[in-house]
């Protein structure tokens, strides 16, 4: 009897323990599946799912002929999961040896990264070439590179390198566009990132990895420029040759369509390769700034066109009006001489241009008076940015006649382009306005924006009418006539009627006054006169062999214009009289 009771007790105990066990399990299940389920599910997802950002493809930049200037090239980053190598049957040294050969890295250095069994990630190389990434793929397929993966990332590349670098800009290591179009259109080029969810098998194995795109990345817009890489190449080549020939320090060339304001070429020297911008060293403070829009200079005699345009338009002068050029003139207590200190006697306004008479310019400026003169200077766009769609434009420096720093002599010096600071683009745009029957166009570089939504064309924008059509045509005619008898006439092109104005400007010192030896030689011209297709501005800084614009800058204009006539298939002018004399002054 006692034994039976004991047996029943044991059974009860076992039952109780089993029940307790069942209750514990049930309780744990309730805990895991109901009370803690959200946190645990999230933790589980975190362990085997990755919510990563899809980097959008940055938009390409193409020239007017759709040649790529900047684009995204997919290059692979070589990554490793060192914790996967140990279980693969291959040693870290063996993998390092295989990879080191391909990556050009000492195997010992790679082995240091791979020989860390607890680590789940190591970056072995960034942006390897397609040839190397293909070789690594083959290694992986043959099982010789366990735990190694390739992550293709869009890298910014500039196929033409230095061509148009200041216009294109570059993509910095910080991950944003800088300078030029890259900087100005950063928002459009960047696109919008997407989201990708990837799920991997346990223990980090890449077998059976699955990905889901939660949000598609929106690629950046492609930009079609007005820049023509052929014209850009011609401009850069001729500029470089002139800088070398005349021992100059730097220079700028702008080629513009006067009818629309489209910039066809914008060349600067020295320049850099956008692919390796970090290697560019320049004594200039802001080395990457585009000198054509960011550096201002005193334009010198090329500015006389603006003075004449204003005076003609206001009816102050006529093309045939004469003055006595005695070689020097006193105005505002300052004596101003002609550049060659020569007197030309009785001269008309065309002679003023042909001889580049400072005396004549002071005479015209004084007749205009300060209010009218600066009104026209402002109307031509000086003293304010042109609004070009490029990063980093400055507005120049036009003296304010109401300020304490303005003197009556300022009007005289400003009339022939000294004491006033402009950018090369401002001057090219102003001359283009004269060529374009007096209408100032906003210069622009991007003509089309291609997005997934469609194509948006950027239409040319007329800013304002600066002078009357008759004024503009009269000045063009005077300029063409003057070009045939000016000091730069030997640079006219046989068969074609072209016109332009030279400039040799002094360079101001920070301490006041001007450099005695240094000059800026420039030329701004257009052609063909009967139907101008282009305006070309050439600016050569600090030429040491010759200081004059007629000898340094005008030949560059001639060389570029000659090639453009051929490139654009422009037939010779019908009424052209060939002038090709070799004398100069």
């Amino acid at each position, binding site marked *: 009897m006692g034994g039976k009771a004991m047996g029943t007790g044991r059974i009860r105990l076992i039952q109780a323990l089993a029940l307790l066990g069942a209750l514990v399990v049930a309780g744990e299940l309730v805990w895991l599946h109901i009370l803690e389920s959200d946190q645990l599910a999230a933790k589980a997802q975190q362990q085997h799912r990755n919510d990563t950002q899809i980097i959008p493809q940055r938009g390409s930049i193409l020239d007017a002929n759709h*040649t790529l200037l900047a684009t995204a090239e*997919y290059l692979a980053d070589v990554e490793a999961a060192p914790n996967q190598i140990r279980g693969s049957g291959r040693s870290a040294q063996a993998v390092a040896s295989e990879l080191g050969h391909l990556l050009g890295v000492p195997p010992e250095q790679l082995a240091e990264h791979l020989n860390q069994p607890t680590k789940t990630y190591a970056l072995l190389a960034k942006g390897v070439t397609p040839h190397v990434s293909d070789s690594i793929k083959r290694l992986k397929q043959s099982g010789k590179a366990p735990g190694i993966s390739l992550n293709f990332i869009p890298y910014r590349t500039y196929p033409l*390198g230095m061509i148009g670098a200041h216009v294109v800009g570059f993509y910095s290591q910080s991950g944003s566009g800088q300078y030029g179009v890259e900087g100005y259109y950063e928002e459009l080029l960047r696109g919008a990132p997407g989201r990708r969810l990837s799920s991997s098998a346990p223990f980090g194995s890449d077998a059976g990895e699955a990905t889901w795109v939660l949000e598609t990345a929106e690629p950046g817009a492609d930009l079609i420029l007005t820049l023509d890489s052929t014209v850009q190449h011609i401009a850069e080549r001729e500029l470089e040759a002139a800088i070398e020939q005349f021992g100059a320090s730097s220079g700028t060339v702008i080629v513009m369509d006067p009818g629309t304001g489209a910039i066809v070429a914008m060349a600067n020297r020295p320049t850099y390769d956008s692919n390796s911008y970090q290697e560019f060293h320049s004594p200039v403070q802001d080395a990457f700034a585009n000198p054509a829009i960011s550096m201002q200079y005193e334009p010198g005699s090329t500015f006389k066109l603006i003075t004449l345009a204003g005076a003609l338009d206001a009816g102050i002068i006529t093309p045939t009006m004469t003055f006595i050029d005695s070689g020097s003139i006193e105005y505002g207590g300052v004596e101003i001489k002609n550049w060659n200190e020569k007197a030309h006697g009785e001269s008309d306004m065309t002679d003023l241009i042909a001889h580049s008479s400072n005396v004549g310019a002071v005479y015209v400026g004084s007749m205009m008076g300060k209010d009218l003169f600066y009104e026209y200077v402002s109307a031509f766009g000086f003293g304010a940015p042109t609004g070009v769609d490029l990063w980093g434009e400055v507005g120049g420096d036009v003296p304010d006649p109401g300020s304490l720093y303005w003197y009556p002599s300022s009007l005289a010096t400003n009339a022939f382009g000294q004491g006033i600071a402009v950018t090369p683009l401002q001057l090219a745009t102003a001359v283009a306005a004269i060529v374009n029957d007096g209408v100032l166009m906003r210069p622009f570089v991007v003509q089309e924006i291609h997005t997934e939504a469609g194509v948006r064309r950027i239409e040319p924008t007329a800013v304002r009418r600066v002078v009357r059509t008759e004024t503009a045509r009269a000045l063009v005619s005077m300029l063409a006539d003057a070009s045939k008898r000016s000091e730069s006439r030997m640079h006219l092109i046989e068969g074609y009627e072209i016109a332009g104005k030279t400039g040799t400007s002094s360079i101001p010192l920070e301490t006041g006054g001007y450099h005695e030896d240094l000059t800026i030689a420039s030329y701004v011209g257009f052609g063909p006169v009967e139907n101008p297709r282009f305006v070309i501005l050439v600016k050569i800084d600090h030429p040491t062999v010759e200081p004059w614009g007629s000898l340094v800058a005008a030949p560059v204009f001639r060389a570029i214009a000659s090639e453009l006539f051929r490139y654009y298939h422009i037939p010779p002018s019908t009424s052209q009289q060939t002038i090709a004399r070799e004398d100069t002054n």
Partner: protein
Amino acid sequence: MAQQESVLPRPVARAESPERKPWYYELSPAVAVDMGILVLFLIAMLYLMPTGQVADAGFRIQALERSIEQVERENQLLRTQIAQASDLRAIEHVARQQLGMEPAGQVHFAQVPERAQQLKLPLDANASKEELPFSNRWAIIRERFSALFGEEFLHGW
């Protein structure tokens, strides 16, 4: 009488046929369990088959997407290589240094005689010359001569 009544045979009620139950009531429990398992299996298969197909399609889509990405990458690479190959500095270098080429000199433009247009000459080069009137042929000859030797050459004729 009462006895008589009691001995009288009672009318025989028509025998009712036993109610027939559905066939599965007659199945043995083992067969029923087997069939249950089979039904569950079929249901599971019906559920799993499309799920599997969807998963398979998903993997195939992912594989295709990866292929598309790769092809796009290769296209992009080719586009870049084309752009690099059209670098005019390199082309000019090859043209000048290796091929000994020089920039073209003066380009001569041939002017189309305006009178030929005015005479409404046939533009088709294959048109039969016999169809031209004699005066038109003479006009062409004059135009060619004037183009070659100048207008003055013909003045004496």
